[in-house]
């Protein structure tokens, strides 16, 4: 009886299923995210032109090696999530699960790196609202405030992306996401690529250019 109800709910649910519309919705959301970070990039660029010397000196406090490692981690995780879609399209559930799990693991490593990176700054008394931050010159303070805000907001997106991928992983295991029904994996993948896309610009802007 219960299986019958479940089966009924499943077909009933499928009647209202529209993969194209859900993907379109995800893209529209991604556009709002692009504009959100785009706005922040404008703020960064304007203050950078106004406080060029301070931004140049402050950026030397950041470790390029740390940023490079995290960039490569995100690029690899983007590839693994793309490969999980290939796997599910080919009906290979096991591979799809491995690739999604690998992506989640890489996201976790990214966050751990971020923890150490931020942690080192905090230890030196450098965090938003700290006494040291108050004493900094206007330009230095702007650089570090923007650094904490933009990488923090990006980190929040990593957490959201991870959550989405964990939900997807469970649904693949339960066969709720499968070769003929994988819109959730596709949309979580799109979101994950967005997180990578934002970092592609954050990395040179904060760590590299001078």
């Amino acid at each position: 009886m219960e299986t019958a109800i479940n089966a009924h709910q499943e077909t009933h649910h499928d009647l209202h299923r529209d993969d194209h519309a859900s993907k379109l919705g995800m893209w529209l959301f991604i556009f709002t995210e692009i504009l959100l970070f785009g706005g922040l990039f404008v703020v960064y660029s304007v203050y950078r032109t106004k406080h060029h010397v301070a931004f140049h000196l402050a950026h030397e406090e950041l470790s390029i090696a740390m940023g490079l490692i995290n960039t490569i981690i995100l690029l690899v995780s983007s590839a693994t999530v793309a490969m999980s879609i290939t796997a599910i399209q080919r009906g290979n559930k096991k591979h799809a699960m491995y690739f999604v799990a690998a992506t989640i693991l890489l996201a976790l490593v990214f966050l751990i790196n971020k923890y150490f990176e931020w942690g080192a700054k905090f230890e030196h008394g450098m965090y938003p609202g700290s006494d040291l931050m108050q004493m900094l010159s206007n330009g230095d303070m702007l650089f570090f405030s923007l650094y904490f805000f933009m990488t923090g907001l990006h980190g929040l997106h990593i957490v959201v992306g991870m959550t989405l991928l964990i939900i997807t992983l469970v649904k693949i295991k339960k066969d709720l996401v499968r070769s003929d029904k994988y819109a959730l994996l596709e949309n979580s993948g799109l979101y994950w690529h967005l997180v990578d896309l934002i970092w592609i610009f954050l990395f040179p802007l904060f760590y590299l250019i001078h």
Partner: protein
Amino acid sequence: MSNDNSSHISGYKDHLFVLAILITFTVITVAITSVELNAFNTVAALLIATCKAAIVLLYFMHLKFDNKIYLLMTIFVIVILGAVIGVTLFDYLDQ
């Protein structure tokens, strides 16, 4: 049907190839910016970042193979963002 996904399937190797290109670009950016080239540093770094973003959008996010409406909308959004950034910077660089 509206739910058929029987579109283009990229192989594992295609994704690995794209990944290799993206990592190469990243290493090139770090190498270029480690040399003192003044304003050229910024231009080069942002140009390469834009190329990387385009590769992610076209291949990983499947814009190249998907329904062209997604590609058109993305270009539209990027043009708007570019206009906002351009106008703001021209204004500030003039001061």
